[in-house]
């Protein structure tokens, strides 16, 4: 932690950055975001397995964008979302100082055990950072090995009717608080499509139709872009298993387009490009 605090103080003192976004502790087994603007605040910085938040999400905010330079504490998984923001012209590399943290794993959202997302992680060691802190962690999965999400299996094993019933039940609790959208580092539209009413593509009411359409469009807009940080599901007050949707599309992108998001800032997200020989078995 000394390292982190020291680096933060250095950055703040030298005025290299106007703001540093990191973690502070929140109770014994918790952590929450911390906006650091002076060295005194920097003292509070921590990093541990409770640091679940993807702080890159704050980089999309206009007031943060307006700053000259911002430092952000980020795990490898969070950096994948930064890579996507870079590739989509949402951040300027020069305006962000990334304090990459090596990370063996974080806890699951309920605070018990290893987070599921860490079992498929290929970037325990940050792949893009201005400084990397922490001891290197051995990578368990090769970069080119396709990721498979075990929790999808149950869903995939269901019949179509069962899946329909499953999701209708889950989505009935959606209150359309848009926590999923707001917490997502890649939902950065100035005006979300749900707030667009000519035409009103998505019913804004939290009725079955609106909830279904909203969750379709959210997943669809993340198709090929989601980097599996799991924030949407974690912040959902209604405990809707949103990552099932994201992960299903991640697998599709992997299977059909050989694509995994958030590793290479030079590559284009799969839905903005194509190969002539793309699979089209489903087209008559």
């Amino acid at each position, binding site marked *: 932690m000394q390292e982190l605090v020291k680096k933060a103080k250095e950055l703040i003192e030298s005025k290299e950055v106007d703001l540093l976004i990191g973690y502070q502790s929140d109770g014994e087994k918790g952590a929450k975001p911390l906006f650091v603007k002076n060295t005194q605040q920097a003292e509070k910085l921590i990093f541990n397995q409770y640091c679940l938040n993807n702080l890159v999400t704050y980089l999309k905010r206009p007031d943060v964008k307006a700053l000259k330079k911002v430092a952000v504490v980020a795990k490898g998984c969070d950096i994948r979302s930064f890579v996507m923001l870079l590739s*989509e*012209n*949402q951040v300027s590399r020069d305006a962000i100082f990334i304090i990459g943290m090596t990370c063996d794993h974080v806890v699951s959202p309920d605070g018990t055990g290893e987070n599921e997302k860490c079992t498929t992680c290929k970037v325990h060691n940050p792949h893009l950072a201005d400084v990397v802190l922490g001891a290197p962690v051995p990578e368990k999965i090769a970069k080119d090995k396709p990721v498979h999400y075990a929790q999808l299996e149950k869903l995939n094993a269901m019949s179509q009717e069962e899946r329909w019933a499953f999701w209708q039940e889950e989505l009935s609790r959606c209150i359309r608080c848009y926590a999923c959208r707001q917490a997502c580092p890649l939902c*950065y*539209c*100035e*005006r*979300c*499509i749900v707030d*667009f009413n*000519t*035409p009103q*593509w998505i019913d804004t009411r939290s009725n079955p139709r609106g909830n279904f359409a909203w969750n379709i469009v959210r997943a669809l*807009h993340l198709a090929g872009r989601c980097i599996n940080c799991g924030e949407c599901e974690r912040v959902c007050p209604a405990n809707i298993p949103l990552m099932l949707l994201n992960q299903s599309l991640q697998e599709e992108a992997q299977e059909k387009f050989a694509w995994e998001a958030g590793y290479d800032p030079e590559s*284009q*997200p799969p*839905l*903005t*490009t194509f190969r002539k020989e793309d699979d089209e078995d489903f087209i008559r």
Partner: protein
Amino acid sequence: MARIGVFVCWCGSNIAETVEVSKVAEVSKSIPGVVYSVDYKYMCSDPGQELVKNAIKEYKLTGVVVASCSPRMHEKTFRKAALEAGLNPYMLEMANIREQCSWVHNNMDEGTQKSIDLVRMMVEKVKRNKPLDDISIPVTKKAMVIGGGVTGIQAALDIASGGIPVVLVEKESSIGGKMSALDETFPTLDCSQCILTPKMVEVAQHPLVQIISYAEIEKLEGFVGNFKATIRKKARYVDVDACTGCGTCWQKCPVKVDSEFEQGLGKRKAIFIPFPQAIPSRPRIDAENCLKLTKDRCGICEKVCPTKAIHYDDKDEFMEVEVGAIVVATGYKIMPVSAFPEYGGGQYPDVVTSLQFERMVCASGPTLGDLKRPSDGKLPETVVFVKCVGSRDPEHYHSYCSKICCMYVAKQTMLYRHKVHHGNCYVFYIDVRSNGKNYEEFVRRAQEQEGAQYIRGRVSSIYKDGDDMVVEGADTLTNSQIKVKCDLVVLATAMEAPDGIKQLAQKLGIGYDQHGFLTEAHPKLRPVETATAGIFLAGCALSPRDIPDSVSEGSAAAAKVLGLLSKDTLDKEGVVAIVNELTCVGCQNCIRVCPYNAIELKDICNRQGELQRQVAHVNPGLCTGCGTCTPSCPSRSIELQGFRDTELYAEINALAEL
């Protein structure tokens, strides 16, 4: 408040037979916003159009729906009428109740109900349409003709004669195409070279025509009036400007290979011109057979060249030309005998294609016009011609008729009999199609005066028995099997789309059919246009044609080009994308998916000139209105005018149940 008029057409009985038009008009009145509706027998007629125009004025219509035929048919007609009545033409939409309703359904109730729905959808759309202005774009007054056969030559000459510069791109090292290899032509029996060569010279000498031979199209960008073509000039190893065409090199070259021009019946050198009258009369080196280029030996041509025009290190070059219009006259190829295993599959030299036969009888051919059969040089005493080889045979080869074989086979029987007065010639045929000026007379002359014996039936197999070729087939007139011993068999093999045509079509963004022939915008009314504005077609690129047809089409396409390029600017439909800069976040999705590179990032700065953010910006001149950008935009900040989300959504919404 929208004031919509609905005009329901009977199209005589075409629509009225399956759709209760009066009911459609009546029900339309109940659609919110519709203030006027009427049905009429022929809406596209002058009185019909007057009806629309008068109603626009009288009822102060803000939008019009014409329920009639496909918009591909008459959208332009009615939009023009709307404009004349003072209504923005984009405020008129058509409900397609003919092609997509009355003609495909039988039941009156279903047809009527569907028509009402289609009208309602378009009313809802047009209510949300916004007036659009056409976009005026400058025109490059230059044309490109792809293909230097007789069709392309004619097109290039006619365009150039109209004062428009032309770039004529030819795949081979000389222009002239297939016609340059023919002996005499039907039905006049005048010498092909004699009538073609002057045209080749004329086009070569025309000050406005630039011939780029041994070249292919690499890439095409842009749009009507403003194309930018990248042409690959294939490595020729001969500096065309330095070379004088003296011929020393090809006389001295030690390598002999089969000549493509002679259809493999004669030889050429590794440095060669395809035929003596070639234009440009500059040789090229065949890199696959040249000893210098393959084995780094020889090099004689370089040594003997008086103008030092040989460059063994020549590479493909790329040149870009900007043109306003393009004529595609890429011609055809004929199927080789090797495609027909049942007819010997190319294993018997004495089974030849008709194009080979042309060279065998041609005075400038490999035998200088002495008819000798390829295997042993013997004068063929009996020749069998087989028609429809590969044509009209949907089970094995092509379903279409190659159109010209009937005529040239008749001609070839005559050419044969003129050479071998005592010779026998037989023609296996399915039908004789001779529908052209003086064609029927010509065929009858072959049959009645020139001694060609026509046998109606197909050939089942051809084989060699001793010295003879044996043709086995059926004579369906006598209902018997027939076996003809002969010295030479000429197969009138099918005309096919040439190799690489699909790739070319894809580069140009034009359509082709299942055979690979390019598709016209309309088979009857727009026969030389493609669906892509500014690109025209002529000759055998479309389907098999004879010389007069091809030449006429070359001229027709040229007329289209001249019409297009006669103006300084071109009006382009206002259906282009537009960005909402307030909500765009510059994620570049639209930029990445745009097939025309019509979108770029634009900086939004504050008053101090400091960069605030970046947004997408559409160049309306480059935008072709495909709309691929819209669904790629998560925040719907880019919309295709004329097909905005709200307009299409209104169509869907119009289908919600009552």
